[in-house]
């Protein structure tokens, strides 16, 4: 009995801790600043779209949104293609080269990108890749390749080598083996990795902050920081921006819960 009551209370508190702040944001995006300060936790008295209108009129949020889509799309697709090819190669190479490459890529897992911001910044300035979406895509690829390769190599190593051998006897070359065996089999893992990459790239602040200063090149998380002014904060604008940045992700999460949870925990545990 005691167990059931404490369990119910704990579950309720944590649920409330997630639902209430989320509702504050949802409600807040339909309220005036005055009402947000007056009744922070309650639904708006008059629902208004004024914040959304102002956000789209006064800020570059459409551009930021588009930049986020471009950067995330290219980063995720290119990382997946490169990582799956590399992982396939590493998994099939039982010689020294394969091992060395695997160790080198694993090194990237041990050293988080956040510790190299100075050298990365300088390199990108020298290459004139700062303030460029291409630069952002490139650093995203470079920094997410290790984890993607790590997960996919582990997967490709599980594929029984007999499957490849049989195909090789039938005269299939490496390209054919990759296309017809490795790729179709790895679909679920690729899906999980794709979601993982998608979420971390879409939400990333560090690299945009490091490389982008030009207003029209900013991605959503970076642009959102600007709403936090030096002296004043307009929470109605912030909440509306949070809605615009989060709603696509939340809808995808609700539609593909299993893949999201699998992808994000796999990425976490193996990284």
């Amino acid at each position, binding site marked *: 009995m005691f167990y059931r009551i404490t369990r119910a209370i704990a579950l309720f508190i944590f649920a409330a801790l*997630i639902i209430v702040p989320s509702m504050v944001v949802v409600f807040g995006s339909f309220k005036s600043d005055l009402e947000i300060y007056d009744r922070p936790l309650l639904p708006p008295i008059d629902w208004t779209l004024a914040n959304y209108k102002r956000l789209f009129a006064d800020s570059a949020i459409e551009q930021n949104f588009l930049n986020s889509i471009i950067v995330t799309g290219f980063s995720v697709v290119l990382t997946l293609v490169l990582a799956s090819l590399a992982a396939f190669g590493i998994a099939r190479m039982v010689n020294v080269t394969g091992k060395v490459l695997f160790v080198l890529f694993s090194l990237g897992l041990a050293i988080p990108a956040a510790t190299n911001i100075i050298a990365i910044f300088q390199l990108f300035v020298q290459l004139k890749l700062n303030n460029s979406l291409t630069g952002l895509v490139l650093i995203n690829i470079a920094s997410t390749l290790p984890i993607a390769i790590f997960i996919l190599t582990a997967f490709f190593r599980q594929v029984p080598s007999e499957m490849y051998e049989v195909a090789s006897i039938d005269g299939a070359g490496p390209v054919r083996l990759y296309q017809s065996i490795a790729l179709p089999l790895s679909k679920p893992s690729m899906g999980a990795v794709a979601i993982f990459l998608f*979420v971390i790239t879409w939400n*990333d602040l560090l690299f945009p902050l490091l490389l982008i200063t030009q207003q029209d090149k900013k991605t959503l998380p970076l642009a959102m920081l600007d709403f936090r002014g030096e002296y004043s904060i307009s929470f109605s604008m912030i909440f509306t*921006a949070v809605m615009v940045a989060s709603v696509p992700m939340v809808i995808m999460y609700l539609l593909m819960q299993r893949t999201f949870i699998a992808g*994000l925990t796999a990425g976490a545990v193996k990284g």
Partner: protein
Amino acid sequence: MLPAFFIYAALYLYPVLSNFRYALTKWDGIVEPEFVGLRNLQNLFTNDDLFLKVFGNNLEFTFLVVIFQTAFSLLFATYLIKNTRGSIALRTLYFFPTVLSSVSVAMIWLFLYDPNYGGINVVFNKIGLDAFALNWLGSETSALRAIAFTQVWFHTGQMMVVYIAGLQQIPQELFEAAQVDGASRWQQFKAVTWPMALPTTAVVMAYTTIQSFRAFDLVYAMTQGGPNNSTNIFVTLVYLTAFNEFRFGYAAMQSIILVFFILGLTALQKRILKERY
């Protein structure tokens, strides 16, 4: 295969190495770096109170986050281990913050922690507990803890899912045998769940530790290390030293210390793991 390695080597491995070169210079990021040998390292350890403070902050932050995040995620995993409809719905809800961006999370909590208008203080004032209505992010004593709480809120659901996967591997017979022996829930937890879940606990703690060292986004978006550096942690220190103070060489040296610290911590955790299993 080759293109992947080329991009990775040029844009990731090369900066790791050039970081060492920068660390030996005095450099404002604009004019040519001036070689100063190990002076940065010397200053860091003998002449830098801020570095020590940040080190302490980071340890406190990591400690708080690891303890509470692990405890809560294990607690909720044991509560929600059965695949019933209600459990699955709650798991989905608890996991939800994980898909938000750290900037969004930072903004939400920036508002909730607001001393005058924020949701937390409004509630405390309404129920007459005015004494609890602190200036959460504005005071040196509470700011770091407030961010640690946000970090736990952010990622407990994710670690809970890791735990659930681990706990579901435990053979059901062990619990049944314990029940036959008349073990209480707490005794079952102590005798079966905890020891059987140790490998998962190790994974959760290791990941949470690394995650807490990477909490740049949250700190930068919420307090930028303030007030009075009370929330400044390693990664924010490196960023602020380089991009606010324009001391790139010194910041590079700081980041190298951070790399070695993280590598050491990871190696230590791996060793402890190996000894146990």
